[in-house]
């Protein structure tokens, strides 16, 4: 019998290894899944969950402004209570939440920024991806051009837009002021700065969307387009009924992560304007953190995370409705 075992050229793995690999292959789906996930969980556990746990305990302690200790006595949820009741607003660069000054309180600014930038990025990123999905001469270079902003460090991105709206340096400020679009000092005006920061963010991170969506587009089975064409779908209908639903999981993931990232915006604000002009949630974390109010900073960080979690829930619930690959 010419079975595989007898064939030439076959090298049998050493018994131990083979036995191990067989045992692994035999695991139930669940055991196999957890086994595979273990290195990842170990890494994330040590480098993410453990520090978060420590930070969480820190958030239950008072700030320690004096002395060499990093945090003060245990105060339970006081830090959270103080934050949500506005008791420590005085110590924050801007209040956590104040509807009277939507552009000056962290929660509203963060929401405005997130919704505007993610919406714009998705649309523009999709457009860019569609352009890149076509074959044309010089596509590689167009792709370089579209990716380039994403490769710009935030400090530089911030510098570009700071200088672009710096009166005296840039040619843009005066005409914009004359048109009544911006004030004469846009980077210290909360509304102007928010808009500038949104533009800067869209400029840089549309590429993120574009790259991901492009990858999604490229993995669509081309024969489905043939079917759709024969069935009578126009270009737009093909896009809406075939492309869109098939890349939807990718787009959702991209939007999800963009949302999470936008909700944590900080560096861009600090370089283009300042945390006191455009206070975001992360701004509060960083400013309290650099003022060594570690307990408060930790509490703000966890509240930020909780707010993001709420936002994300919206995605997940919305997405679960449209049937899922991811969840």
């Amino acid at each position, binding site marked *: 019998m010419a079975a595989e075992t007898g064939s030439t050229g076959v090298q049998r793995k050493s018994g131990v290894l083979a036995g191990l690999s067989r045992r692994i*292959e035999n695991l139930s*789906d669940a055991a*196999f*899944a*957890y086994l*595979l*996930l273990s*290195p*990842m969980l170990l*890494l*994330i556990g*040590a*480098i993410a969950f453990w*520090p*978060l746990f*420590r*930070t969480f305990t820190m958030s239950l302690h008072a700030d320690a402004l004096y002395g060499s200790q990093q945090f003060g006595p245990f105060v339970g949820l006081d830090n959270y209570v103080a934050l949500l009741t506005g008791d420590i607003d005085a110590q924050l660069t801007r209040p956590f939440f104040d509807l009277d000054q939507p552009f000056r309180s962290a929660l509203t600014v963060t929401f405005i920024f997130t919704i505007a930038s993610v919406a714009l990025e998705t649309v*523009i990123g999709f*457009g860019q991806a*569609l*352009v890149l999905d076509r074959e044309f001469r010089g596509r*590689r270079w*167009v792709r*370089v051009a*579209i*990716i*380039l*902003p994403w490769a*710009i*460090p935030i400090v*530089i991105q911030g*510098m*570009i*837009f700071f*200088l*672009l709206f710096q009166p005296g*340096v840039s040619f843009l400020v005066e005409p914009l002021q004359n048109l009544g679009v911006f004030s004469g000092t846009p980077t210290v005006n909360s509304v102007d700065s928010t808009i500038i920061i949104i533009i800067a963010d869209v*400029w840089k991170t549309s*590429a993120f969307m574009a790259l991901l969506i*492009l*990858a*999604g587009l490229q*993995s669509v089975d081309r024969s489905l387009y043939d079917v759709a064409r024969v069935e009578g779908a126009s*270009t737009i209908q093909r896009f809406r009924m075939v492309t869109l639903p098939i890349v939807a*999981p*990718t787009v959702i*993931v991209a939007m*999800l992560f963009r949302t999470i*990232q936008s909700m*944590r915006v900080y560096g861009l604000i600090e370089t283009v304007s300042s945390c006191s002009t455009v206070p975001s949630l*992360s701004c509060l*974390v960083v400013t309290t953190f650099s003022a060594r109010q*570690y307990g408060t900073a*930790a509490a703000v*960080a966890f509240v930020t*995370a909780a707010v*993001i979690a709420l936002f994300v829930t919206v995605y*997940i619930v919305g997405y679960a409705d449209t049937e899922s*690959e991811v*969840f």
Partner: protein
Amino acid sequence: MATDDAGPYERWVADAIRNPGKAYRAMFVVAAGFFLLTTLFPLYWLVVLALTPEENMTDVGLLPNGFNPEAFVTVFETVPFHWYMLNSIVLGLVTTAIVLLLASIAGYVFGRLEFPGKVPLMLLLLAVSYFPPAAFLLPLFRLFTGNVSFLTLPGGTEVTSPVLFNTPGALVLPYSALFLPLSIFILTTFYGQIPDGLEKAARVEGTTRLGALFRVIMPLSAPGVATAGVLTFIAVYNEFFFGYLMTDGQAQNWAPVVWGILQFQGQYADLYNLMAAASIIGVVPVAILVVVAQERIVSGLTAGALKE
């Protein structure tokens, strides 16, 4: 129908109505042009800044006030900028490799296996990205400076965490952990879409389940894998928060490129032209590298992957 006396525009429109392909082509050109213009303009301005002599840094218009390409040389004279770039590239590559490996495995697990606890686990992973980096910093810094002791041996000596500060480990580990969730989610969606039949075929042919992942599923998801890699690489290349707190900023201590750029922030003066020049130098090669790499990755994974 176009008549003889119709202008070229009307003729074009009439033509486009008859032949929608033409209209789409025109739309395409307009869209491509728009995207190019909007993405490139700020970069162009960056070049203008880099070329503007430092003392003329007022009223910079569409053309540089004066022309001073020296900035591109000065960058290397003042700081070992190439070393910073190299550090970042190495850190980026190592992190990307780790992330792609772990995220591929996790993406496979989440995208193609059904098991109890899957959704909660994914949500937990996602939660890592909810937190501002500052939330990780203090404990991680203690961990990486040998200030966390795991246990005390009977003799009284303590087993403490290794001192990773100023080593690549102090950067690669947090980068890997923090950029993992994004890649996992990306790869989960891509791997989930590969038809079962192909994985089955590979397994019957003799791969293990993981073998099928690396030999069939990953190559077929090449665009997604490449994108996850590129996103991770660039994110690492530009990451600043950990880059600046986990090293002391010296090129020989693995400080990343952003440190190099920030070296031009003086006590009072920000040397904008040097920063601009530095970022152009830092960015252009990487962007090109990334695009070339991406094409290579895609074609490498899809075509030649198994011509071992």
